[in-house]
């Protein structure tokens, strides 16, 4: 049995442990350790993609315990894709942190590695309680990263974020306790087997427990009534951290995707749990994100609202659950993660050149590197608003096509098209204020430095390459996403990979 599936968790964990031991060493040493780990992670992610692309679902049994009794890690196309996106984003975060942000606290790199370990674990695990544990690992690391750099604004944002997520964790535990109490298992594959055989008396309780779990996941994904925490948290974090947080909403969406395809969809009494409320709330999230972007007075807040719009779009596709919709969701997820991360980097570069004005959308001093930054801005704006010819257009088109037959198609199409228009409008207005209306008098205070730190430049190039690249190689990526979606919508194969056809589990119902 190959040990490949556990490496994405082990590599950053070991790096984090080494980083904690060497916390008195120079920043250069820590950067070297952190970089080594992320490069190793990239190589592992590439190997995972190749391994997963053969179409089989790989099961890694921890301690070699047979399936429903031990914890399993599952490697399929979806988890390999998520690990790869995390590794690429990790590299961007690290290189932008190397511009000096990592010096503001002693443990930045250790927390970054722990966060990556938690993310990869959440993407690979096949056990619900293990998912909870990895959620907590990534949340604890994110709590520490959020307040990295200090300051009252960050402490206050951190306090709200921690309290909200602790309440979310309590809800998750309630749901896990009820699921174990009624079903007697927490293994996702076993769960789908037990769900189909559940007695009618237990069904309402299990439905409630799974609904609570869905609530926890949409809280992480920032769905409408639970999503108001997002802009404040994302905009008060330091730059590398807000880039990293772009993937945090995707974890919630990933978990919901897993739960709905393996758990909810397999039994008739849970199959309709996400309908009809989720598409409408997703449309509401898109509307709220668009309004928030229109009202924003800082560039970072515009980008945070774009994260909400992308969450809403993804949840529209996840709620539908058909293979084309899921394939579209996976392509859109890759695109929007890279592009919104690049926009956060862009906002920081703009803020660096405007002195005290920072990224407020007011007229200020002329941007020194006007041409280069302007061109990058144009590419990103085209990609994120969904205009041709970049990846945003293809992603949005795939989502819209896949939703054409659904009852909420009109609302979904309207939301996606209008939000695209609003985003284009907001970004154009921001660009005209920032780039085209310079003020002659230097009212903004001391002259800002025009140089762009090497690290941020590397990170931006890395993220920026995503938009055209995803459009150029759209065909292989889309066919990978389609294959992943087909794998997801055939839960029987997942169950067979974990439990095996021969194993018969004797269960006696506890009183």
């Amino acid at each position: 049995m190959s040990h490949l599936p556990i490496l994405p968790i082990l590599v950053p964990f070991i790096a984090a442990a080494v980083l904690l031991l060497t916390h008195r060493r120079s920043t250069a040493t820590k950067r070297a350790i952190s970089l080594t780990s992320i490069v190793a992670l990239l190589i592992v992610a590439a190997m995972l993609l190749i391994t997963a692309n053969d179409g089989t679902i790989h099961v890694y049994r921890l301690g070699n315990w047979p399936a429903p009794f031990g914890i399993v890690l599952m490697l399929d196309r979806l988890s390999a894709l998520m690990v790869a996106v995390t590794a690429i984003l990790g590299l961007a975060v690290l290189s932008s942190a190397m511009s000096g942000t990592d010096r503001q606290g002693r443990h930045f790199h250790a927390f970054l590695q722990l966060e990556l370990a938690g993310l990869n674990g959440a993407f690979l695990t096949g056990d619900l309680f293990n998912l909870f544990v990895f959620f907590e690992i990534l949340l604890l690391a994110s709590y520490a990263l959020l307040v990295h750099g200090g300051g009252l604004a960050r402490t206050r944002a951190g306090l709200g974020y921690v309290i909200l997520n602790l309440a979310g964790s309590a809800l998750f535990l309630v749901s896990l306790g009820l699921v174990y109490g009624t079903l007697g298992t927490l293994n996702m594959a076993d769960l789908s087997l037990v769900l189909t055989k559940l007695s009618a008396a237990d069904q309402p309780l299990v439905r409630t427990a799974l609904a609570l779990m869905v609530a926890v996941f949409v809280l992480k994904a920032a769905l409408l009534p639970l999503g108001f925490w997002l802009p404040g948290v994302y905009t008060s974090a330091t730059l590398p951290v807000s880039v990293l947080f772009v993937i945090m909403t995707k974890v919630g969406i990933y978990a919901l995707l897993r739960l709905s395809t393996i758990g909810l969809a397999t039994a008739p009494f849970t199959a309709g749990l996400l309908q009809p409320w989720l598409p409408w709330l997703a449309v509401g999230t898109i509307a709220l994100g668009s309004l928030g972007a229109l009202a924003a007075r800082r560039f970072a807040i515009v980008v945070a609202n774009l994260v909400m719009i992308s969450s809403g779009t993804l949840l529209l596709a996840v709620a539908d659950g058909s293979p084309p919709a899921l394939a579209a969701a996976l392509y859109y997820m890759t695109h929007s993660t890279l592009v919104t991360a690049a926009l956060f980097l862009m906002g920081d570069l703009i803020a660096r050149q405007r002195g005290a004005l920072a990224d407020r959308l007011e007229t200020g001093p002329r941007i020194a590197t006007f041409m280069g930054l302007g061109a990058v801005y144009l590419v990103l704006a085209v990609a994120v608003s969904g205009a041709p010819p970049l990846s945003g257009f293809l992603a949005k088109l795939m989502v819209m096509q896949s939703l054409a037959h659904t009852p909420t198609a009109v609302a979904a199409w309207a939301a996606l098209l209008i939000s695209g228009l609003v985003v284009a409008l907001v970004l154009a207005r921001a660009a005209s204020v920032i780039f085209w209306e310079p003020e002659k008098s230097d009212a903004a205070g001391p002259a800002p430095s025009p140089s762009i730190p090497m690290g941020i430049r590397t990170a931006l190039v890395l993220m920026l390459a995503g938009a055209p690249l995803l459009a150029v190689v759209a065909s292989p990526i889309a066919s990978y996403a389609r294959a992943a979606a087909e794998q997801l919508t055939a839960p029987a194969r997942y169950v067979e990979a974990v439990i095996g056809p021969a194993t018969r589990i004797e269960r006696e119902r506890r009183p």
Partner: protein
Amino acid sequence: MELVIALALGVLTASGLYLLLRPTTFSVVLGLTLLSYAVNVLIFLGGRLGAKSPPLAVPGADTPADPLPQALVLTAIVIGFGMTAYLVALALKAKGECDTDHVDAGDAR
């Protein structure tokens, strides 16, 4: 027995929720603690109540107690403890920075 424990859980959760909605961080921390007590007992109850079930599976003995909820609740307790410790540290930091433990302290509005 079941009724007593169910009522205790209800009271714990209700008080936890009430404290969670109070405007000072100290009561919020207390509320989260009460809530996590309730949650831990709930997970523990997933293995069913039984004062006489043996802890080990011995041939000939009764059905043993389910060991998994005990392991789950141990993990949940440890994680909850760590998170609460972090929250307290953060709340103290916020209090040190603005001299009050009101959750909206230092708000510009």
